[in-house]
């Protein structure tokens, strides 16, 4: 009798032990972005949270905001690595291009898999690292180029245009400007009467456009490197009763811009799908950590790549609202390469 009881207990322990083994160990999910005070990153955070929820790992989901400080970003990352004892993966939007290498070195040293977005110096190669899974960016030049073309077409391909750049040091600002210049070269009857830097901000854009409208009262269209500035420009136009008469373009597809395009006040923006960025940025390094992706088998163009964006204009605005605003598209977090367009260096 005693022997039978003993056997049952041992069997029970073996079964419990195996079932604990069979469940996947939760991993900390670190998202490092600039600030929740802008809609773009706010949606990013929602995507990350949705991904964590899909695994039932909400308590392991950590959103870190650096509020524009490169130092804070690096420190927060280090702190989470320490707290999780290395059992973490990261999705990072580096504060500036120059920070990417420091972050990469730190995580490589700690043996933590991660993905970076947007900003990276060209000379730094992801393939030189074992733990840096991917660097994903969007075609900023294409964003600048396409929105500029739509803007120029909306005024019949000729006339005076004013432009607002973002923070002059950001690579996205520089690249979107290059795209704009390329479009400008293709439209000989479009004249750029001036440009200012509004640092990605609504209020600064308002002030700059107010001044620009005095300097050049016959501006026919305004190109902006992002939507927040485009909204500032629209409000400055409204204050001078020019809204709807002078079209505006931006990038980011924030809710206010979607409304403006629907109202006919703006003509173009670009969506990079921040929700997808939030979730996929964690799904990919997690897949590597769990052995579902083997990093050594990834070709170079899957280590540094460009992801799909959606150009939103007055033509497809209703479709976009139906699918992305009123509904949320279905995201398959295991479809790692679904939005892959091409390698960065191609």
């Amino acid at each position: 009798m005693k022997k039978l009881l003993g056997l049952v207990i041992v069997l029970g322990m073996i079964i419990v032990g195996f079932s604990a083994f069979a469940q996947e160990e939760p991993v900390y999910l670190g998202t490092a972005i600039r600030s929740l005070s802008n809609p773009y990153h706010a949606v990013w955070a929602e995507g990350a949270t949705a991904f964590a929820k899909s695994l039932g790992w909400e308590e392991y989901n950590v959103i870190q905001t650096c509020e524009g400080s490169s130092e804070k970003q690096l420190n927060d990352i280090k702190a989470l690595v320490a707290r999780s004892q290395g059992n973490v993966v990261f999705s990072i939007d580096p504060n500036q291009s120059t920070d990417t290498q420091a972050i990469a070195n730190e995580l490589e040293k700690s043996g933590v898999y991660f993905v970076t977005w947007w900003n990276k110096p060209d000379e730094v190669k992801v393939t030189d690292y074992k733990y840096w899974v991917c660097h994903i960016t969007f075609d900023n030049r294409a964003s600048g180029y396409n929105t500029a073309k739509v803007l120029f077409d909306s005024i019949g391909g000729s006339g005076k245009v004013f432009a607002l750049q973002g923070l002059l040091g950001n690579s996205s600002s520089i690249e979107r400007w290059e795209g704009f210049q390329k479009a400008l070269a293709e439209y000989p009857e479009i004249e750029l009467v001036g440009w200012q830097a509004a640092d990605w901000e609504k209020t600064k854009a308002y002030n700059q456009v107010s001044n620009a409208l005095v300097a050049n009262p016959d501006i026919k269209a305004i190109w902006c490197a992002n939507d927040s500035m485009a909204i500032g420009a629209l409000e400055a136009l409204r204050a001078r009763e020019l809204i709807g008469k002078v079209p505006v373009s931006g990038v980011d597809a924030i809710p206010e811009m979607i409304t403006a395009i629907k109202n006919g006040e703006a003509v173009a923006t670009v969506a990079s799908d921040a929700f997808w960025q939030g979730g996929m940025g964690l799904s990919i390094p997690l897949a590597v950590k769990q052995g579902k992706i083997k990093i050594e088998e990834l070709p170079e163009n899957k280590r540094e790549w460009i992801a799909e964006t959606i150009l939103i204009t007055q033509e497809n605005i209703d479709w976009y609202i139906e699918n992305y605003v009123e509904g949320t598209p279905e995201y398959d977090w295991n479809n790692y390469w679904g939005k892959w367009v091409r390698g960065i260096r191609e």
Partner: protein
Amino acid sequence: METKAAVLSDSEKTWLSKIGANPSLIALIVLVVFFSFLNPRFFTLSNLFNILDLASLLVITSLSLAFILMMGSIDLSVEGVVGLCSVVASLLVKNFSNSNDFGFLALVICGLVGAGFGFLNGFILSRFKIPSFMVTLGIGYITTGLGVLITRGNPVVITDWNFRLLSLGKIGFLPFPFILALGLFFIIWFISEKTAFGRYVLALGGDETIVQDLGIPTSKIKTEAFLIGGILYGIVGALLTARLGSGDITAPLGFTFDSIGACVLGGIAITGGVGNVPRAIIGAFILTVLRNGMVLMGVSPYVQQGIIGVILIATVALTIDRKKIKIMK
């Protein structure tokens, strides 16, 4: 016979205050003449309207900083409190997120919210003897955090077009925000020149120990000064929402630098005890005119911020009272 050195050290607060004429006003006039020559569009009615409109928000925040700087303190919570009040305003008037419809009452409520945080600034500063630099920085972070918490990062778009008249409206050819700023200027100027409180504020900046020895309640004065500042920030927050059509916690980015810069450019010493309220307004206009003029002149955007920085450093160097640097206010 007094030695030259003794005469200088006795009255050498700043050499600016010894000159009867106001150098900043002269500077403003010179700038206006200069830019008018370089671009005929500068001296037009359209640009005057533009400058008044752009300067109005800065004038109001500078009124607050004027009081606080003259007292010898500093206020780094401008952006946070203005941003939070912008968010509060947007949630109180008709908007897309809730069914509130407080209309112009929102302006009053924002003033009260701002007053609350201003009071906190002054209270913590005087009760716990923490330098204003730290207190206001902390309150700035707290208010920004609250704003983000309330909105989860998404600006709240408003639909109350009457409320928007606070920014879009005009009386005659004057933009309404400017008229509001002018009204507030006269109130603050009156408080500063005609009340005992106003005189104590300046005295505190001059030499706090003397004021204390005279039995004047310095804590109360400091708290009141920050409270007034808070009310002004609340009003600016509501105005910003009216201007931009949404409550956005990031909208006032850059206001701290601009407001302190305006006071300094106008001739209010950053070390306290020197200046008066009109100087802050002159400084606000100098900054606005500089930015407007540079755009009209076609100055490269790459150097514009740098030029303003250089002018500011030069002005601080000329107005700072080096004897007082060690005292933390």
